[in-house]
C-alpha cells in the first residue's frame, strides 16, 4: 500500500525551472507523482491545504554549528536538526569546529549517521570537513578522504586559514573534487581582542573593536588566491560594504567566488550593542547601517549568493557573563525565514523567487546538492507562509540554546513545514503512514 499526500493550492516557486504558479502536488512514497491543477485525492490520500503558502525546493542552511561531537550542552545533532526542521530547512551543512574537529573521515561518518538517526532523518546533515588537521592552520586535513566520506566543502570555520601558502595548497587540492573552500574571513592579527565592530559605538562603549578591514583584507587575499588556483572559494558570513564590493569585483572577473550573509547582518547594526546584551555579540560583528545597506544591495544584485544563519548555539550560562567574556554567536535556524521575508521581501529588496534562490537554489549549487521540484523527483520541499505574522519567543525554540537577540520581535513570514525522504512535517506534526 503506497503512501499518498496531496499538497493543494500551494504557490510553487522553483527558480531553477522558472516556476511560480499555484498548483497541486501529489506525492507518492516520497516521490512527486503529479504536478497540476484540480488533482483529486484518492482513497487514503492525505490532503494538505496550502492556500496562500509557498512551496519551494527544500531550503538548506549551509552554515550551521551543530556542536556534536564535543559540545552537546549547547546543541546536539538531534536538537539542531529539529530546529532546522521547524525553521523550514530540509538540509544543513554543519561546521567542523567540534571536538574532535571534523578532520577525519570517521567523524564525517559519525555526523552523517547521527543526522540519519535524528528526527527520522527528515533533515539532511551535510558535514563540512576541516581544511587543516585540528583546524590549527598548519597541516592539510585528509581532504580526499573527507570528501569521499561525504564532506560537501572544507572550512576551518571560526579559525581562518591564515597562512596564504596553506590556503593556496588547500584550494589546489580541493579543486580536484570541485568542492568549495569556505573561509571565515578574518585577519586574526587585525581582529585580535575585538568583541564588536570598531567605530563610533565601540568608541562610546569602550569595547575593543574588530575593524571591517580585518574581514576585507582576508577576502581580498583569498579572492586573488582563488583566481590564481582557479579553485572554488566561498566567503562565509560577509558583513561589510567593502566585502560586498570585493565580491562584486571578483564575480566580474569570473573568479569562482561565492558568498553568504546571515540574517542578523542584514537586519541589525552595532547600535544594538549599547545595552551590552551578549546576544548581540557575534563574529563577524554587527556592523553599521551603511554596511547593512550595502549587503541588501549585494543580495539584490546577486553579489551575495546565499543566506545562511551561522547558527551558533551557546548555553545560557555561557552567555550570561560580561560582554567581553561572552562567546561569539547566536542561534538562527528558527528565525531565518521570518527575518528574510520581513526585511528583504516585504521591503522590496528581493522577490520571493529570489529569496528561494538564496535559501535553496544557490547554496545547493555551491555544495553540489541540487534538486528540482518535478514529476518523478524525490519530494524535497520547504513550505512557508509569506504573510503570517508572528512574535519570536526564544523559549519556544527547538534548538537546545536560546541565544538570540530577536526575542519578542514581530516577524512576517513563517515556516510551515518540510517534506523530505517521504516524511512530511507540517505545523509541528508528522503526516503520513510511514511515521
Amino acid at each position, binding site marked *: 500500500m503506497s503512501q499518498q499526500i496531496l499538497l493543494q493550492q500551494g504557490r510553487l516557486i522553483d527558480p531553477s525551472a522558472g516556476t511560480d504558479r499555484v498548483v497541486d502536488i501529489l506525492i507518492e512514497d516520497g516521490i512527486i507523482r503529479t504536478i497540476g491543477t484540480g488533482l483529486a485525492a484518492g482513497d487514503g490520500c492525505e490532503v494538505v491545504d496550502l492556500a496562500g503558502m509557498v512551496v519551494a525546493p527544500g531550503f538548506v542552511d549551509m552554515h550551521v554549528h551543530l556542536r556534536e561531537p564535543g559540545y552537546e550542552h549547547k546543541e546536539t545533532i538531534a536538537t539542531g536538526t529539529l530546529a532546522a526542521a521547524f525553521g523550514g530547512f530540509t538540509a544543513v551543512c554543519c561546521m567542523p569546529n567540534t571536538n574532535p574537529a571534523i578532520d577525519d573521515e570517521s567523524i564525517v561518518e559519525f555526523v552523517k549517521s547521527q543526522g540519519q538517526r535524528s528526527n527520522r532523518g527528515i533533515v539532511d546533515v551535510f558535514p563540512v570537513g576541516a581544511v587543516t588537521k585540528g583546524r590549527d592552520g598548519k597541516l592539510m586535513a585528509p581532504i580526499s578522504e573527507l570528501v569521499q566520506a561525504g564532506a560537501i566543502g572544507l572550512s576551518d570555520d571560526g579559525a581562518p586559514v591564515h597562512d596564504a601558502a596553506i590556503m593556496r595548497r588547500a584550494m589546489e587540492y580541493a579543486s580536484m573534487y570541485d568542492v568549495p573552500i569556505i573561509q571565515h574571513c578574518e585577519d586574526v592579527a587585525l581582529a585580535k581582542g575585538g568583541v564588536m565592530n570598531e567605530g*563610533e559605538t565601540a*568608541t562610546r*562603549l569602550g569595547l575593543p573593536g574588530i575593524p571591517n578591514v580585518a574581514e576585507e583584507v582576508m577576502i581580498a587575499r583569498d579572492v586573488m588566491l582563488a583566481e590564481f588556483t582557479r579553485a572554488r572559494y566561498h566567503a562565509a558570513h560577509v558583513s561589510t560594504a567593502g566585502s560586498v564590493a570585493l565580491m562584486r569585483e571578483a564575480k566580474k572577473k569570473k573568479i569562482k567566488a561565492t558568498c553568504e550573509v546571515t540574517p542578523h547582518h542584514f537586519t541589525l547594526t552595532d547600535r544594538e550593542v549599547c*545595552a551590552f546584551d551578549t546576544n548581540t555579540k557575534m563574529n563577524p560583528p554587527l556592523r553599521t547601517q551603511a554596511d547593512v545597506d550595502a549587503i541588501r544591495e549585494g543580495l539584490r544584485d546577486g553579489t551575495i549568493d546565499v543566506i545562511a544563519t551561522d547558527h551558533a548555539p551557546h548555553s545560557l*550560562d555561557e552567555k550570561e*557573563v560580561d560582554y567581553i567574556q561572552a562567546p561569539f554567536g547566536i542561534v538562527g535556524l528558527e528565525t531565518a525565514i521570518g527575518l528574510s521575508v520581513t526585511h528583504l521581501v516585504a521591503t522590496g529588496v528581493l522577490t520571493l523567487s529570489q529569496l528561494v534562490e538564496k535559501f535553496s537554489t544557490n547554496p545547493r549549487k555551491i555544495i553540489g546538492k541540487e534538486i528540482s521540484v518535478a514529476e518523478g523527483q524525490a519530494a524535497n520541499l520547504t513550505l512557508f507562509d509569506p504573510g503570517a505574522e508572528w512574535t519570536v519567543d526564544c523559549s519556544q525554540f527547538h534548538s537546545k540554546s536560546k541565544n538570540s537577540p530577536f526575542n519578542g520581535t514581530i516577524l512576517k513570514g513563517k515556516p510551515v513545514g518540510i517534506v523530505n525522504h517521504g516524511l512530511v512535517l507540517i505545523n509541528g506534526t508528522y503526516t503520513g503512514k510511514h511515521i
Partner: protein
Amino acid sequence: MKLASRHLLGLDGVSHQDIELILDTAVSFKEILNRPIKKVPPLQGKTIVNLFFENSTRTRISFELAQRRLSADVVNFAASGSSVTKGETLKDTARNIEAMKIDMVVIRHASAGAAHFLTQVVKANVINAGDGCHEHPTQGLLDMYTLREKFGSLKGLRVCIVGDILNSRVARSNIFGLQTMGAEVSVCGPSTLMPREIERLGVKVYHHLDDVLPHVDAVNVLRIQLERAAAGLFPSLREYHRFFGVTSERLAKVNRPIAVLHPGPINRDVELSADVADGPHSLILEQVLNGVAVRMAVLYLLGLSE
C-alpha cells in the same frame, strides 16, 4: 530631589539636571569634610560592598571614606588576577552578595559593561567605579566638580583631554559629562591611541599639543600605561614624553594659566612633568579631596532611591 536612575553606570545619557544635582550636593558634603567631625548619618543601617576586581588604591579608599563618612557599613571585596575576572565568577559573586542583603554595590572590573551586567543579576544599587575602557563616572564627576569650583561654571569651558583616549574610561566619562554641561571638549594624543570615529562623539581631535593648548582653559592629562608601548601603539615612553608630555615649557608658550588635572596615579615626567604636577596650576590634590565629596553625593542620592 532624586536622580532619574537608581544606578550610576556612566555619564553617557545622564541629564544636565542630574549632574548638577550631584555637583550641588557635593558642595555641601565638601563643607562637611572641612569640619572637625566629618561623619554624618544618612546611610546609617545601609550596607555597601566595594567589589574590586581590578587593583585600585585611591578609588577604593575614596569610596570607602565617603561611605564611612555617611555612616554606612562597608565590606571590601578585592579580587585581582585572572581566575576571578571571569564573568561566571562575577555572576556567582553577585548572587552571593544578593543573598547577604547588601544595599549598594560599588564595582570596578576590567570588562566594559560589567556594571551593566551586575544590574541584571542583583537588586542593589550599582555604582560603576570603572569598567574596562568604558566609563568611570565618579571620576568624571569629580573632574567636573573641580573645574566648576575653579572656573565657576562648566558652560563654555574649553577642556582638552590628553593622552591614551583609546583605553581611557576617564576620557569617556569626561567627554559625556562635560558636553552635557555645555563645555567644549577636545582630545589630544597619538593617532594610535585615538579610538576610531571619536570625532563623532562631538570632540575635536588634535595630535600636537602646541596646536590645542592656546585654545583651552584646562587640560586633563591621562596616565599613559607602560604596556601600551609594548603593544606597539607608540614607539617608546621617551618619544611619548617629548611629543605628548605636558611640560612647563609647553604651557609657558601660552600666555595665560591653564589648569592641570590628572586622575592619578601620575607617571612623573612621562605624561606630565614633575614641576607641572606640583606647580601652581595643578588641581590634582583638589581632585582627590573633591573625589570624596562627589562620591558622598552619589552614594547619598542613590540611597534616596529605593
